[in-house]
């Protein structure tokens, strides 16, 4: 033990105190308030009334759009996290190779992640716009299509575009997490494997993946949380239209609270979302840690 800490055992807690205060004020306190509100009657104007038990929860679950929203949320999280992890991993492996201009490529890659999601979603909106969209303009000019295509003809297609935008902006985050993990792998392991006759796939599955797993675990857990809570892409591109058919839980509860003014059920949905996230993150972390212990 550090001799300084031995003399002053409270010292570490003093260093932690600012973080604890910040987390308590900005994270724990709002969570407690939302839990409390989810069991309270809340008027349309926002006045908080008395305890109503589970009424807000039953009202939320019985909403006609609830099933669609839950299904959309599942597809949104699985597709965005899954595909961005796959593509991010591939890009990280490419970026870990030595090639001219690697630094420039790495810098450019960070742009989609560093740019505001509202701007990203607006740009995607302009790209796929039927009337003046740049996608139609490019394809028409190249002679690939003869007339403009309505890229948003059904709500299912609109939702696919939203997922594509989500994947695009999330890839850099995964790529840089994995890249950090790749750079910590000792080169000599690959050299030894090469001497032993291992090919690309063997090295990938027996060296790269096991050693990069901690970085992938962190990025996946964080991604699940970010993507689940992501609001700007869907709100900017469709606002959940038509009739909540492209909503995820976060945009739905916002619409419920501030458009429909059903604040009680909106708070209940917030709590349900929070618990789902805790459960997903918990299961994932336990599984990963168990595998690491076994390894």
């Amino acid at each position: 033990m550090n001799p300084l800490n031995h003399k002053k055992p409270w010292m570490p807690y003093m260093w932690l105190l600012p973080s604890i205060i910040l987390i308590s004020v900005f994270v724990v306190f709002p969570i407690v308030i939302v839990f409390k509100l989810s069991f309270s009657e809340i008027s349309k104007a926002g006045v908080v009334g008395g305890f109503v038990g589970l009424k807000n929860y039953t009202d939320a679950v019985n909403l006609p759009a609830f099933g669609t929203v839950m299904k959309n949320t599942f597809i949104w999280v699985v597709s965005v996290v899954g595909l961005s992890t796959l593509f991010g991993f591939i890009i990280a492996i490419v970026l870990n190779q030595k090639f001219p201009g690697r630094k420039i490529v790495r810098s450019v890659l960070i742009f989609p992640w560093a740019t505001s999601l509202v701007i990203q979603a607006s740009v995607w909106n302009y790209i796929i716009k039927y009337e003046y969209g740049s996608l139609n303009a490019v394809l028409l000019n190249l002679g690939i299509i003869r007339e403009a295509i309505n890229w948003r003809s059904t709500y299912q297609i609109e939702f696919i575009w939203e997922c594509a935008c989500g994947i695009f902006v999330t890839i850099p985050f995964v790529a840089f997490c994995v890249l950090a993990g790749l750079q910590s792998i000792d080169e000599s392991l690959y050299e030894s494997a090469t001497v032993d006759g291992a090919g690309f796939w063997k090295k990938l599955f027996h060296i790269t993946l096991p050693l990069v797993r901690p970085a992938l675990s962190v990025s996946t857990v964080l991604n699940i949380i970010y993507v689940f809570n992501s609001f700007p892409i869907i709100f900017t591109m469709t606002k959940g239209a038509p009739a909540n058919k492209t909503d995820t839980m976060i945009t739905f509860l916002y619409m419920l609270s501030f458009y429909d003014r059903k604040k009680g059920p909106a708070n209940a949905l917030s709590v349900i979302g929070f618990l789902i996230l805790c459960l997903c993150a918990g299961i994932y972390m336990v599984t990963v840690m168990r595998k690491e212990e076994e390894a």
Partner: protein
Amino acid sequence: MKKVIATLLTASMLAAMTAGAATAVSADEPIELDVIICQYGPNTNDWFLGSGMDGTNFVDKFEEENPDIKLNLDVVSWNDVYTEVDTRIANDNAPDILNIDVFANYANEGLLLPVSDYCPEDLYEDFFPSFIEQSVIDDTVWAVPDLASARALFCNADIFEEVGIDYPTTWSELEDCCQAIIDYYDGEIYPWGIDMTTDEGQAAFAYYTWGNGGGFVDEDGNWAVNSPENVEGIEFALGLIDSGFTNPNPATQTRYDLQDMFAAGKLAMVIAPNQLPTYVADKEGDINMVTVNIPANDGKESSSVGVMDRVMAFKDDSAPDQDARNEAIGKFLKFFYDPENYVGWVSMEGFLPAVNSAVESLVEADPTFEAWLDVLGGCQFYPTAKAEWDQVKQGVIAAEQNALTGSSIQDELDALQAELEG
């Protein structure tokens, strides 16, 4: 013991003196009013807080004339204002004065002051009576109008001349016009714009139901969203979409998207507010436009849609002097609606006025105002004084959007009506 008594006496005297000093200070302190104003355009913030009012701003000018009142004024975007107000109410920190469109929820929950408590009588008499009527619940006026806009049909005159057709006045004429435009331009130009988005789907409902003798409420003021006239009206709108006469994605293309298309000459007809010419000019569009009545079903009367925003005052039981607070709110309103200030504001924002005293100056500055004031006189307004308005507004939008994806509009509106009655 004597020392203790002397100390206590001294302490109590000091406490009394401090309290007296505090009272004296509070008596001199100005009354603070928290004001929330909605952002109508890019110049709103500058006019209220920057230098957009002839080098000065509303707050500075008001405080200069009323040194006993301090304004804590925030200009909040329309996207955020509901969140901001609801959060403040939930935290028992409602603004003193609020500019917004809706008021019924606040009034029904006992949060608002009646207008008669703070509005000077001469100012009250100055408001258009038909506007004041829109803010009455149980014979009490809860808010005053701050401005209005009226909707009409804007047509691209060059397209109509090129195709050789007249402006439509009825639904059957409208269908003929749409078909003629489609045939002439081979689908390159959309004849008709429809916005059934979350932003303004309620306006689409109003256009087609009021134009068919229906509406949100029946003659007795009860909700009647599933009336046969309403179902027929929305089915007509859906028919226009199915026939390929409209913009392709009415559930996600907002009025602003339609206005952009109109400004670019890509859309022949759009129902829009009176600010459209300014909007088109800002977009550098060069459109020769004509304004006509919104077409109605054959044999039915055309009706314009009026949209009105309001100013209201919240109760504050913690205010030490309620009369002084009410008087301060009255002074704020008097100053705001003073033609010297109000005319500049309404012209800047491109809306229509809510008070008689501003009409003359506005018509003098822009003669087109007079025609719009006539349109406004015949407008119908949304039934925002009814407590269920939020539910109805979102309900009709959801019904339209579900119908766009294949549901029956009759079933959708029946379900909404049942929900309202249940």
